[in-house]
């Protein structure tokens, strides 16, 4: 059909539906992919750290190789997040773009102070066990709180549930000690992201 010719009503109705679906698909951030990327990074990364510390008596901290795996996977998850988000949102300006920028800033705003607090605790003489606990549950606390707040902005119930779940996992994981907290991180933290990804995929298909 030419772009200049007049339409019959049923063709116009079909075109509206098609254009709406196409635009919504183009503008939608693929949230299941984001959750899956972070779920895999968290599951494998903290799982590797747990493998390197299990059986330690006393607790000395994770091996360098396991920390390197987590760092590489987190960098990959950040790259995936930037790619997926910018692919959906490029060219969009105004209120949504400002909301997205503030949401993006909330991550360094949460994590930089967390790392500084961890540094301060270490400087004040905190034991390896205390550092292990805060290192394992701190990121879940920050992430959970950001998700709960962001869910209010976008009225996103899956994000809210995931945020609350991560806060619960962080609060409970700390009581498992530095070794157990890493296992909880991998299974319940990484697993939580993967369940959220699977749920959204199922919901979209259903």
């Amino acid at each position, binding site marked *: 059909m030419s772009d200049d010719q007049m339409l019959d009503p049923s063709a*116009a109705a079909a075109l509206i539906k098609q254009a709406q679906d196409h*635009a919504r698909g183009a503008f939608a951030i693929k949230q299941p992919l984001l959750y899956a990327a972070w779920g895999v990074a968290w599951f494998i990364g903290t799982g590797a750290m747990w493998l390197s510390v299990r059986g330690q008596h006393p607790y000395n901290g994770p091996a360098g190789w396991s920390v390197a795996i987590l760092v590489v996977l987190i960098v990959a998850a950040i790259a995936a997040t930037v790619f997926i988000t910018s692919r959906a949102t490029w060219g969009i300006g105004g209120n949504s773009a400002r909301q997205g920028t503030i949401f993006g800033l909330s991550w360094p705003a949460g994590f930089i102070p967390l790392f500084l607090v961890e540094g301060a605790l270490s400087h004040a003489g905190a034991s390896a066990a205390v550092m292990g606990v805060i290192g394992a549950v701190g990121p879940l606390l920050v992430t959970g709180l950001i998700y709960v707040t962001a869910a209010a902005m976008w009225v996103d119930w899956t994000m809210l549930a995931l945020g609350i779940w991560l806060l619960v996992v962080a609060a409970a994981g700390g009581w498992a000690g530095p070794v157990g907290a890493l296992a909880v991180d991998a299974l319940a933290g990484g697993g939580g992201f993967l369940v959220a990804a699977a749920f959204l995929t199922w919901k979209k298909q259903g």
Partner: protein
Amino acid sequence: MTNDELDPVIHVPARLRIMVTLATLPEGDHLSFPRLQQILGLTPGNLITHLRKLEVAGYVCSAKPDGQSALSLTHAGRAALDRYTENLRRLLDQVSPP
């Protein structure tokens, strides 16, 4: 044009797709010209021609906040699209058997 007629400014495939695409964004958002072109798959010249007609009708607003065209539907544009879809539905209801 009476209130029951399909607005001839909108009732053309390219312009209908432009209007629907811009209406998908929430009020307060705007879309760059290259992104709109990518979504619609129109040539720049064709897109400019149709956008100009929509701007003349007061349905689309084009600003250049950072040197790039930022396109959005005006209040009149959203209202016109609502009226258009309502009239379309009424027409289709008349045609289809109860």
